[in-house]
């Protein structure tokens, strides 16, 4: 068999998978195997094809399947696939590393996916708002979300298409890591915890709430509190089992109307069986955005000694309903009401009493321990952040109902 025929066949096979092999290189390798090492041609062809496929980072070359060239909707692709898709660039984000040429989000009518173009791929830069056909890209997983990788074997061609694309809105409760579009209301605007952060807070729709972040970047605008927005192509990240929404990839348009936000309030009734250390009067770090609890020596784990701390009241406790023990955390307003002591009074006592801050711990413990409360709030990391806490009151009708249940006639 003529080696140039084999060379041609190998290079065509690789090209079909998106690589641009050097024919001379193929031929010289074949020569070496066949003439120097006496390998038969068929085996040499197999070896060279496999070697080059590995070098170009291609899989499935030589095997029968040629699925990589078949056009598929974005919603159907999964990590590990080699795919060809057609989509519109709906977001471009600054590359975080010199080895990345471009990253952003590409969408078709079925879904959207994050993509990254490696600098090594030497691929043409794609423009925001245009449609592209991307052949032989590979899907993998990055930080738990599917990600489309454009490598040197990927072919990108710009399309003359301009179909309007309306992303499908996902209910907040059904968001998954990746890319998501929501219609939601800004229900909380938190203090930013980082200088690169423009805004953070809580978004919600009828089904639930989710934390959002906007990082500082040109032309990024803040959301208005209590306003409703259509947010297209935000990035859904997962951290410690909780989702958050990053709006830097997203386009957001304020929307008319209002949303009744489903807050997923959890209500627990039970006895307060334990008051944990760290309850009572505490000192907090005054550095903006820090707010950490200081040690007794005014030491902040990040900002070191902070003599100009501010005082706060809180209660970390266990509310036990007899079946499960729930951790609860109450903030100042709730503690003031529950213990019948204001922050100012607590500070006054702590500064004059020989027991100092311990005195406040004991007062709050003695007021709350062993009593029945109904607490409602939102659950966060296995702890109930209490929004309201009311003492349980005795209801004669409950007594009557229980007497009936215990079987009145038996007595």
């Amino acid at each position, binding site marked *: 068999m003529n080696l140039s025929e084999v060379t041609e066949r190998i290079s065509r096979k690789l090209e079909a998978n998106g690589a641009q092999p050097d024919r001379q290189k193929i031929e010289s390798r074949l020569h070496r195997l066949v003439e120097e090492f006496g390998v038969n041609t068929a085996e040499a062809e197999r070896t060279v094809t496999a070697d080059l496929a590995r070098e170009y980072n291609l899989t499935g070359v030589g095997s029968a399947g040629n699925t990589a060239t078949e056009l598929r909707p974005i919603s159907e692709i999964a990590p590990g696939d080699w795919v060809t898709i057609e989509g519109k660039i709906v977001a471009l984000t600054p590359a975080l590393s010199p080895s990345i040429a471009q990253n952003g989000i590409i969408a078709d009518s079925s879904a959207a996916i994050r993509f990254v173009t490696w600098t090594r791929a030497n691929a043409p830069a794609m423009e925001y708002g245009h449609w592209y056909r991307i052949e032989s890209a590979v899907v993998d997983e990055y930080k738990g979300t599917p990600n489309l990788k454009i490598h040197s074997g990927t072919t990108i061609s710009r399309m003359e298409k301009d179909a309007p694309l309306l992303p499908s809105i996902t209910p907040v409760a059904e968001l998954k890591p990746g890319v998501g579009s929501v219609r939601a209301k800004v229900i909380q605007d938190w203090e930013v915890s980082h200088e690169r952060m423009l805004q953070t807070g809580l978004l919600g729709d009828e089904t639930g709430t989710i934390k959002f972040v906007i990082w500082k970047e040109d032309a990024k605008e803040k959301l208005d509190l209590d306003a409703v927005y259509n947010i297209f192509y935000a990035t859904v990240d997962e951290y*410690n*089992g909780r989702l958050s929404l990053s709006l830097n990839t997203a386009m957001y348009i304020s929307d008319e109307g209002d949303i009744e936000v489903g807050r997923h309030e959890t209500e627990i009734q039970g*006895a307060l*069986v*334990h*008051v944990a250390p760290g309850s009572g009067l505490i000192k907090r770090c005054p550095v903006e955005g820090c707010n950490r609890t200081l040690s007794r020596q005014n030491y902040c784990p990040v900002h070191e000694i902070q003599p100009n701390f501010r005082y706060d009241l809180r209660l970390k406790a*266990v509310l*036990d*309903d*007899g*079946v*499960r*023990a729930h*951790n609860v955390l109450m903030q100042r307003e709730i503690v003031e009401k529950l213990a019948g002591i204001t922050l100012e009074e607590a500070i006054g006592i702590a500064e004059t009493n020989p027991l100092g801050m311990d005195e406040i711990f004991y007062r709050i*413990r*003695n007021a709350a*321990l*062993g*009593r*029945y409360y109904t607490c409602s709030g939102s659950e966060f*990391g*296995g702890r109930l952040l209490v929004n309201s806490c009311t003492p*349980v*009151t*005795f209801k*004669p009708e*409950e*007594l009557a109902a*229980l*007497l009936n*249940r*215990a*079987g*009145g006639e*038996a*007595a």
Partner: protein
Amino acid sequence: MKPQSAFEREPARRVFASELRETRYQFKEGEDEKSPTYVLLPSGIRSNRIFIVGTLTEKQRKGDQNIFYNGRVVDPTGTFFIMAGSYQPEAMQQLARIEPPAFVAVVGKPNLYTTPDGTCLVSVRVESISVVDRDTRDLWVLDTARETLDRLEAFGTTDDSKKAQEEYGTQPDVYKKIVYDALAQVQL
């Protein structure tokens, strides 16, 4: 289960004194030295911690080197024996401050003891004790009645209650009567 919530605090079961007094069976889950020890309540649930509210009628300081306090807490059905030693200094000092009679709420661990003459006693090792009011006591009677009835109604359907049937031959009606009598003492 998420890794950060792998530790789950044992709930404090609600139990009347006359049921706890009947408790005889104690067991350990797992081989580890730190594995929790449970008592099996006759109404059919394991318990490693209980929550009781009643009247502290008596307290005594005992011991010379190893000081401890014991006391009696009375509910509508009988008496709980509580103790707090120097291994629970906070609880011991809390108990030391309280002058009987007083309504108290106690969180503690039930323990079985056998006296030299062979009688089995149940005492509660106090984790925390605080003074409460009559309303809290009444709420506790309701709460304990509800929890006890829940257990009795599920009796025979759970593993723990099948075990209780074997160990104690529990007759749910007897405990229903106890619950009824306890409720009947709550004044409207």
